[in-house]
């Protein structure tokens, strides 16, 4: 059998060989605990601080504003809990299509602190937020009450792209903290917190060809929050636990490569998406979920008509060596359908499939996928 075709790069990506090379020495040679004061510890400490500087520079932050965590989920839990506890936030403005690490954390906070309210912005059928509704919500809240807007830059299932520049200005006008989940966009779009006033954002290395098990939180120095984990003074008291040195080095390296090669990969990946989209949307009843244009160039979520031949399309694709996804990997164990797709209020019965691409995919792979789908649909 041929090698499977991996079109599930929004779930996770293959590590870049250069990234793993940068990590190797920190497992076997420079293996010290960065908190140790001897030479081996200092080498590890230096690697972490250098990585922090790299990440900070790439997004226009200062090193003191970057905090490494074990993943995006931890970063988002940390800041949302901290927002209530340390910044006194009582009103969260979010949307029903956020990732579960935001959605569930906000539900939890509402349950834990009855005074905390979560206001959900309506989502339009094209997968974008309703800006008018957003302004109505902000208008309804007193100006001096601490509030936080948490809206994702790129939706992980349908790829809708949020205008964070516009939203940041709006948050400024309404004196709201602005958090944006940039897990899917970081390393794919330039983000500069000096130009765009963002209070918090987070990243996860394994979405941009870095290792799993490492993420970070950017926290604007003006909004200090405290630790979620207790028991050590690592990450300037914000995140206890021995630092994952190799993975931190890998994260920085992966983000650096992503930025250096962004233009080139963007052109390539965009052409793959465009090709697959054009060819498949030619088929009877197939259309794009969300916005075909104003969406991340690596994510294509397609709606297929529900027919006997398409009912098990995802399974059929897998049998034919094509790896795609029905939605977010994080909830794919739970068979409840996608909360994102259901927010689009589609009127038809459809089979929805997310194809997500990376720099390692080829046009030839797209051709195979198109041929397989036509076979499955008996076209």
């Amino acid at each position, binding site marked *: 059998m041929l090698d499977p075709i991996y079109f599930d790069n929004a779930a996770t990506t293959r590590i870049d060989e250069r990234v793993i090379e940068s990590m190797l020495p920190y497992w076997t040679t420079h293996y*010290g605990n960065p*908190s*140790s004061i001897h030479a081996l510890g200092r080498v590890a400490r230096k690697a972490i601080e250098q990585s922090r500087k790299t990440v900070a520079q790439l997004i226009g932050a200062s090193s003191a504003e970057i905090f490494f965590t*074990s993943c995006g989920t*931890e970063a988002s839990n940390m800041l949302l809990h901290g927002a209530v506890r340390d910044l006194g936030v009582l009103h969260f403005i979010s949307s029903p299509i956020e990732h579960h690490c935001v959605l569930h954390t906000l539900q939890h906070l509402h349950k834990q602190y009855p005074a905390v309210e979560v206001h959900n912005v309506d989502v339009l059928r094209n997968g974008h937020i309703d800006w008018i509704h957003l302004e109505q919500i902000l208008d309804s809240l007193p100006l001096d009450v601490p509030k936080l807007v948490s809206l994702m830059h790129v939706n992980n299932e349908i790829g809708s792209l949020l205008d964070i520049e516009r939203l940041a200005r709006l948050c400024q006008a309404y004196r709201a903290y602005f958090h944006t989940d940039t897990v899917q966009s970081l390393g794919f779009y330039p983000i500069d917190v000096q130009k765009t006033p963002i209070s918090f954002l987070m990243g996860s290395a394994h979405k941009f060809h870095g290792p799993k098990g490492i993420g970070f939180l950017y926290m604007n120095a003006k909004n200090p929050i405290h630790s979620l*984990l207790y*028991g050590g003074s690592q990450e300037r008291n914000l995140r206890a636990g021995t630092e994952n040195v190799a993975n931190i080095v890998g994260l920085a390296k992966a983000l650096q490569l992503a930025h250096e090669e962004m233009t080139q990969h963007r052109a390539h990946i965009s052409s793959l998406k465009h090709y697959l989209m054009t060819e498949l949307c030619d088929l009877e009843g197939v259309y794009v979920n969300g916005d075909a244009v104003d969406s991340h160039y690596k994510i294509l979520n397609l709606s297929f008509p529900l027919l006997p031949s398409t009912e098990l399309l995802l399974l059929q694709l897998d049998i034919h060596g094509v790896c795609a996804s029905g939605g977010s990997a994080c909830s794919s164990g739970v068979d409840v359908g996608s909360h994102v797709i259901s927010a689009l209020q589609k009127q038809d019965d459809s089979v929805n499939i997310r194809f997500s691409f990376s720099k390692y995919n080829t046009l030839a792979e797209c051709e195979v996928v198109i041929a397989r789908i036509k076979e499955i649909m008996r076209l």
Partner: protein
Amino acid sequence: MELKLPVYLDNSATTPVDPRVLETMIPYFTDNFGNAASRNHSFGWHAEEAVDYAREQVAALINAQSAKEIIFTSGATEAINLAIKGVADMYARKGNHIITCTTEHKAVLDTCKALERKGIVVTYLKVDESGMIDLAELRAAISEKTILVSIMAVNNEIGVMQPIVEIAQIAHQYGALFMTDATQAAGKVPIDVQGMGIDLLTCTAHKMYGPKGVGALYVRRKNPRVKVTAQMDGGGHERGMRSGTLNVPGIAGFGRAAELCRLDMASDAQRVTDLRDKLENALMQLPETYVNGHRLHRTPYISNISFKYVEGEGLMMGFNKNIAVSSGSACTSASLEPSYVLKALGLDDELAHSSIRFSLGRFTTEAQIDFAIAEVTKAVNRMRDLSPLWEMHLDGVDLKTIEWAAH
């Protein structure tokens, strides 16, 4: 035997990754890079298989009844936070009292302190001069309101092993759960969660020749079925107890590391015991030198020694380039405070400051121990030669009786 420098005697802070462990990890970065939560294609299944296999390996190391009792986390600190806060939340109806001990790792102590601010009552058991808790004190402190007794299996600074079987029995008599921080114990000394009556246990890969950034929480599922409230919300990974994309290569490495430790535990421990004894016997030839902690109830991997009238940090500087040791826990080594563990044993600030933790490991060789003996002996003698305090001591002056003039 050839000597490899630096001589790394700080294996309680962290260990190098065993090459066999790294070999296991690499394919999960490159060819099998899937997300373990991807349920509809082979990349996801391979990743999930790797995680489940590692779960079996970690379960076997501590003799858990089922692999389902293992929850992977980003490290021991997260596992400890999850266990203690998770139990406090879940068992709030039964009571609000937790018992732990003054010489626990900061991850336990700081989590308990955070809970105190939320109304949980915490008893911190004292230890005697050998670092052991007093079971009578535990019996006096425990009540029906106690929900958790958390006592570490092996102390990270002095290597003392508490009588956890007896502690577990006492906890269970009162319906309390027994948790042990086995960060320094797992993989080094035999741990049997079923035989020892452990309800919750925490450990980490990077202390047993696995990678940093991955740890585990054992949560008993039978007799009794223990539950903890999740502390991180998200996709509901790890059966709802710990959300976040699984660190598949790290977990696979952890599994392999656990297996290697299980298979080599007895032979490693025997070899390390011999090396530790050689090191201690040689250094104890120096006058005014003391081993801290119980001499019998302790792990062979840690030897904490006080060299009276020698300042520990200065001593470390003396052989810093060639020998890596620590003056206490790495997690607090940036602070200049004397070790709270040694102070709990009754050492005064001065003696606590003159202490060094030597921690041995799988890769420690006899040649390295010989080198360490020679270098440490030389450095201690040199520093004492320069010390007026040492001179006074030799002259028979009892330094405790001197009243120093302020200036």
